[in-house]
């Protein structure tokens, strides 16, 4: 499955990451996440995760999360390198790790939480309500559509609108 679509995935993730080398890494990691090619003893390579309606979409989706993790990790590293995060560091095994966040971080974190909460309860109310049902309560798009009597694509639009506003609110 993965081998057959490897080219397409590498192409997509080259666009997503901006680098062919990173895209290759990501596709390799997708492989890790979804299973292995069949082994000689007949154990199949399909993941034990139940039926997958559209394997190619699934592979993209798994890869998107891998990239997101990398982007977030890079962001944290850059903040750390820039000295924004002043944490005590200790060593466990061979890895230096950030331990307890400093008091400075705690204050910054509290402010950020307050801004997030304000934005999430602010306008546009309808979109934010849908977004909260999804992201805070964990309801699926389909559940929200049924609950509010709107179409799935309307749910998507509400969520997109909410994301735009949140991005703007947190940016200022």
């Amino acid at each position, binding site marked *: 499955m993965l081998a057959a679509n490897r080219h397409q995935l590498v192409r*997509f993730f080259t*666009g*997503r990451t901006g680098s062919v080398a990173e895209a290759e890494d990501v596709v390799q990691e997708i492989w*890790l996440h979804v299973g292995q090619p069949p082994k000689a003893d007949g154990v199949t390579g399909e993941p034990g995760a139940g*039926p997958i*309606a559209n394997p190619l979409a699934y592979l993209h989706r798994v890869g998107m999360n891998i990239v997101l993790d990398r982007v977030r990790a890079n*962001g944290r590293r850059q903040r750390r390198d820039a000295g924004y995060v002043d944490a005590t560091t200790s060593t466990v095994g061979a890895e230096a790790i950030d331990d307890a966040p400093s008091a400075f971080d705690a204050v910054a974190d509290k402010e950020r939480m307050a801004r997030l909460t304000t934005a999430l309860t602010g306008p546009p109310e309808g979109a934010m309500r849908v977004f909260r049902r999804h992201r805070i309560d964990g309801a699926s798009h389909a559940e929200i559509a049924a609950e509010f009597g709107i179409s799935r694509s309307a749910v998507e639009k509400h969520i997109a609108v909410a994301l735009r506003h949140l991005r703007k609110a947190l940016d200022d």
Partner: protein
Amino acid sequence: MTDTRMATDAAATWHARLDSPDMDWEDFGRWLDADPSHRAAYDAIAVLDAEIGERAAAIAALLPANDDEVAVPASDAGVPDAGSASRGTRWRWAAIGTSGALAAGLALLLVAPSNDGAAQVYATGRSETRSVTLDDGSRMQIDRGSRVSVTGGGTPVIEIAQGAASFAVRHDPSRVLMVRAGGYEVRDVGTRFDVVSARGRVAITVAQGMVSVVPSGGAIGDATMLNAGQSLTITPDKQIAIRGRIDPARVADWTDGRLDYDGAPLTLVAADISRYADSPLVVDPSAADLRFSGVLTIGDGSRLVDQLRAVLPIRARRVAGVVHLDAAGPR
């Protein structure tokens, strides 16, 4: 509207539709390729969304409680689609009937890792097990006399320095839980399994689902897959790995305070007992062919050899700090 603003709007539209049955990944790819600023705009949206998902519990606690009863105005959704996001749906989900199940699974995907990097170390005493819920919702039970560290937040990495831990991993196809033990890596998605690392032996048994096992740093192609009811016993020093079968009901039997065997070689039983005993336990060749069926009660570990001696024709001798099991008398 500025270009940045437009890129952000389009990014939000794409992000909201990732799990849609109509999601067109090729079109999304073209949009990303069209301008480097698109990638940056998308990153910002995805990171923010992940952050909110990660902090969902804390945010929920801050939100006003009385939060229903107001209908969503449908007009709110009447925002024009951003750029190409509304175009082309040449490419559709193959099996509509099961896409709901997939969507439900994917709903968990964006729950992002938290406090990456901070290692939590758990050490258990000789008659104490410990149950831990990991940041991704998976549960880990740690056996007696074990030392286990956890890093990685929502994508947990567990290092078993000594002892054993069993795992019930929350079903989430995008987050692989990794367990490192004795120079091997065990990866898993939505499974119950057990990993033992003690006295030069790594043993992995799977109760449910499937895991992959590779030597740390080894090639992916070298992975050994284990299904439910299978076990892999590795002796890293000798580079030997033996695949076996196990009754899934017996996986991680130690969580109930017992060790449950059905015709197990005495060497295997001794390896398990070694985890709980003060001294290394060695099976001499004279007793190596014995097999044991039955249940041993772990307790504080000190009575395990006695329980074994009560039912098997063996003797225990202590030589230079090592307990040797050998055949008792002529057989």
